[in-house]
């Protein structure tokens, strides 16, 4: 564990000494909870429609697939017309596209970012690496199954899938959301212990708080 994360004794301005534990004192300690849908079905369906038509992707390229996402913004593919846009901060994004292989080091960041996104949120696995490791099946540093760590709504297979495939993936995702099945965030909350167990099994130097909203 990094030295900065160890407990330290602090001397206040009036000379009083006390202890600060960086892992607990700086972070909120409530786990995610299951969020119930809106009051009535109609409203929830309306909301789901709005969510599906307004997919805000977190601009976080985790692997080589990030290069396939750039063309989506160009006139050739023009993902905007589907209500898709990229947001620079996870707070404002709903869709996390895991673009290709995911190393253990990146996984840590992915988990953080995912937990910082607001519910309902969706995860899309892009490329074979996220499905079963793909060509990195025997790599010492690349995860093999994304859904061990995060609830995945949709995989787009291929190595790498072209942008058109991604567009198709968005359309599929929209259908899922509209059908009210895009409840990955609730899934994550429900099986939180399980996900954490998997995450910690792979990330040996777990130096984050358990819940990093």
């Amino acid at each position: 564990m990094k030295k900065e994360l160890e407990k330290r004794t602090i001397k206040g301005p009036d000379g009083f000494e006390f202890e600060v534990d960086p892992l607990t004192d700086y972070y909120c300690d409530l786990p995610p909870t299951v969020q119930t849908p809106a009051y009535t079905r109609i409203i929830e369906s309306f909301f789901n429609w709005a969510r599906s038509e307004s997919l805000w992707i977190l601009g976080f390229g985790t692997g080589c697939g990030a290069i396939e996402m750039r063309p989506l913004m160009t006139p050739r593919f023009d993902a905007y017309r589907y209500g898709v846009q990229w947001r620079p901060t996870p707070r404002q994004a709903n869709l996390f596209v895991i673009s290709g292989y995911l190393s253990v080091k990146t996984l840590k960041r992915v988990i953080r970012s995912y937990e910082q996104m607001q519910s309902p949120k969706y995860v899309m696995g892009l490329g074979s690496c996220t499905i079963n490791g793909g060509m990195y099946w025997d790599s010492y540093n690349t995860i093999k199954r994304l859904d061990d760590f995060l609830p995945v709504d949709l995989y787009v297979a291929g190595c790498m899938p072209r942008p058109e495939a991604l567009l198709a993936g968005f359309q599929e995702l929209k259908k899922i959301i509209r059908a009210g099945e895009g409840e990955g965030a609730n899934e994550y909350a429900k099986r939180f212990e399980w996900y954490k167990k998997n995450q910690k099994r792979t990330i040996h130097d777990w130096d984050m708080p358990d819940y990093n909203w």
Partner: protein
Amino acid sequence: MMRELYKKTKQLFPLGDLTEQRHDLVFVSIPHPFLSSLLRHLRDKEGFSHLVLLTAVDWLERGEFQLTYLLCNRSKAWDMGVRVVLPREGATMESIHTLWPTAATYQRELKEMFGIDFPGSPGVNDDFILEGWDDIPPYRRDFDTLKFAEARFTQRPGRESLDPAQHMAKHHSDGS
């Protein structure tokens, strides 16, 4: 010509044989205690101002690590690789971050991936790519990556792997 440079330098340092890859790329070897003085000489006197890379090869069978310092003389467009050989057990090499500050990053990587120590190099013990690595360094050839991956990660069932050699052989026979 680089051969003249080699001859000239050989009078000063106990250089090994010259390997000419191209007319502008040569490799020489030198016993590792002389390395830093040779590099300094090349940098200050011969115009090899740029450290292109620093890399290692694990000669497991010989029980040695071979380090290659690739230098570049920009004005003449010459590249010269300097090779040193280290014993594999407790491999330690003198740090050259004083010559090129960038070397520290290479050395940090080598420390993480091969376990070659460079005492005094800034941040050499910090994590580079692998955070929290607790096994033997992964680029060592005695590290079994498949075994590690199976133990560390869950594989998705139903995956098929083809042995590349067999696969290519089959293709070859099909084609002929």
